[in-house]
């Protein structure tokens, strides 16, 4: 068993005299260390969220709630909030109050939307999930297929053309790709809508509503996929090139497998593992991408919400979004780690 850096894990050497319980306890401990990363990352964000507004010079109350919120504040409300945040107490007690509130799902109150932060975020979340989810799946699938085909034909014209054009597309930042698509397909040709996620007040239902949503999704989705397809593509292509040299591919060839079988069932399958891992690692980047694309297309997701809360200086909302996004990224990473154990027999064997 090696740890994630390829270094042999030192632990008790399994020999005659070590009781099974010790071995099991050691395995458990290792499993726990696996989760520590996530806990540490989350704590870092929590601390940042807590410390940043309180480090600002002047009234911490103003830093936590933003200047605009203060205008609408009555003295009673202010006293009530100070008590709730324990602002009149020591830093340690304030931190405890902060954590307790979070545990109860209280992310604070947004004065711009006049609602609980959590409620506001949950309102906008489905659109981001739709956009990001489809973009993640489509770019991974397209990357796999293109990478397999390209790696199989290494050095030939199709491979060279694909490699050059995808590398070129990858150079475009998501928001510029979004702007280009918006300008050409929205403004010049007028085939896609310029903003929003559905036609407002159209009263569409059923299939027509689905079509309307897809129509609005098309351009932002295309912008994300075009830019993000390159990394799974390059990864698959590289894995493909190394795998095609292996002996089992030669065996498959000599026993008369068709090209399609060799490409997808024998060699391509090996690319699945690194691509799954990288899909997980792509989640944070995808969030960044979705953020910018949503702003360009005024798509009502969390990215657009973040932009808007930045403009209105709605501090509790910005902090709430940061916390939720971190949580989402960590969960995605955790999922990938667990999935990895399932896909790769070599990892779970060691137990």
């Amino acid at each position, binding site marked *: 068993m090696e740890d994630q850096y390829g270094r042999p894990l030192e632990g008790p050497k399994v020999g005659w005299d070590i009781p099974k319980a010790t071995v099991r306890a050691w395995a458990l401990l290792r499993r726990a260390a696996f989760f520590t990363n*996530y806990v540490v990352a989350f704590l870092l964000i929590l601390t940042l969220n807590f410390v940043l507004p309180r480090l*600002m010079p002047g009234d911490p109350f103003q830093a936590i709630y933003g200047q605009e919120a203060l205008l609408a504040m009555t003295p009673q409300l202010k006293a009530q909030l100070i008590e709730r945040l324990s602002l009149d107490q020591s830093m340690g007690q304030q931190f405890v109050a902060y954590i307790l509130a979070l545990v109860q799902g209280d992310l604070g109150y947004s004065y711009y939307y006049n609602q609980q932060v959590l409620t506001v975020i949950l309102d906008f979340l489905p659109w981001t999930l739709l956009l990001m989810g489809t973009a993640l799946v489509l770019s991974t699938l397209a990357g796999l297929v293109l990478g397999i085909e390209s790696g199989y034909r290494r050095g030939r014209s199709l491979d*060279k053309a694909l490699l050059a054009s995808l*590398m070129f597309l990858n150079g475009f*930042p998501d928001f510029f790709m979004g*702007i280009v698509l918006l300008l050409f397909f929205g*403004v010049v040709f007028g085939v896609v809508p310029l903003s929003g996620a559905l036609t407002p007040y159209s009263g569409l239902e059923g299939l027509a509503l689905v079509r309307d949503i897809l129509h609005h999704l098309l351009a932002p989705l295309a912008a994300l996929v075009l830019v993000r397809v390159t990394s799974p593509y390059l990864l698959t292509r590289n894995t493909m090139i190394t795998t095609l040299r292996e002996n089992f591919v030669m065996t498959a060839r000599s026993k008369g497998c068709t090209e399609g079988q060799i490409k997808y069932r024998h060699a391509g399958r090996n690319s699945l593992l690194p691509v799954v891992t990288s899909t997980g690692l792509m989640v944070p980047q995808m*969030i*960044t991408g979705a953020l910018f694309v949503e702003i360009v297309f005024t798509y009502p997701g969390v990215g657009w919400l973040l932009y808007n809360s930045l403009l209105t200086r709605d501090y509790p909302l910005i902090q709430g979004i940061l916390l939720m996004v*971190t949580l989402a990224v960590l969960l995605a990473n955790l999922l990938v780690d667990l999935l990895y154990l399932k896909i790769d027999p070599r990892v779970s064997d060691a137990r």
Partner: protein
Amino acid sequence: MHVDVWHEVGERNVGRAGLLLIGLIVLLAIFAPVLTPYSPRENTSTQAFSRPSADHWLGTNDARQDIWTQLLYGARTSLSVGFGVALLSGFISVLVGGTAAIFGGLYDRFWMRIVDATIAIPDVVVIILVAAYLRPNVLLMILLLSALSWPGGARVIRAQTLTLKERMHVSAARTFGAGWSHLLFRHIVPDLAPVLVAIMIQDARRAVFMEAGLSFLGISDPSVMSWGKMMQYARVFTYLEVWKWWLLPTGLALSSTLIGLSFTGYALESALDPRLRDRDDHAEGGV
């Protein structure tokens, strides 16, 4: 087998194209004052939204400022942020990754925990939060971006140092009682150079992208011109024809910088990866 990595990058078409693009943009940024008679904030006497002409190569914007001039000065911001982050973040990566590998033990574990945790953090959102509180300027931007981008490099440097550590010349230096800084900077870093440069190119690419993206969101130093900011302003006027010489060239300038960096980085990485470089590459002149 000894491979001259640097030579190979120049041999490949991708590498050559990348270096050419970067070189061109660096030249434009350096010679900006020679290439234009205006300054980026100067309100010229030409009317607003004028089309490209001999006086104004890319026309003027809503405030009668010369767009070509702004483009040139924007390159300075992008490149200095990219260069600054590459240097700072590369240095931290070497320091943390290298010492973690040399010392090992608890010190190593501590840093690798930090690295793992930091890699999982979504950096754009963190920067947005920090920038919402602190006034963003170029220096702060470089510091923030470096603080979030060193861990990836540190992990790679650590893995490389672990293998280099066992080499003869390093062990020899150790036996003579060399300290860690001597080992790291005199014996290990020179051997790491290609890997380090690949890491720094990647850092620079991300930094240029992030700087543009953040200034596109309005998070930028108010005193400097930047491509993201130009695109943010230009985006409002898409109903006019001005986007053709305002928004598009700016986006293309940004994209070429990013493409230049990623082509160079890709050429370097595939020259470094023994699995990707083998005989048939040379026969076909590479990709």
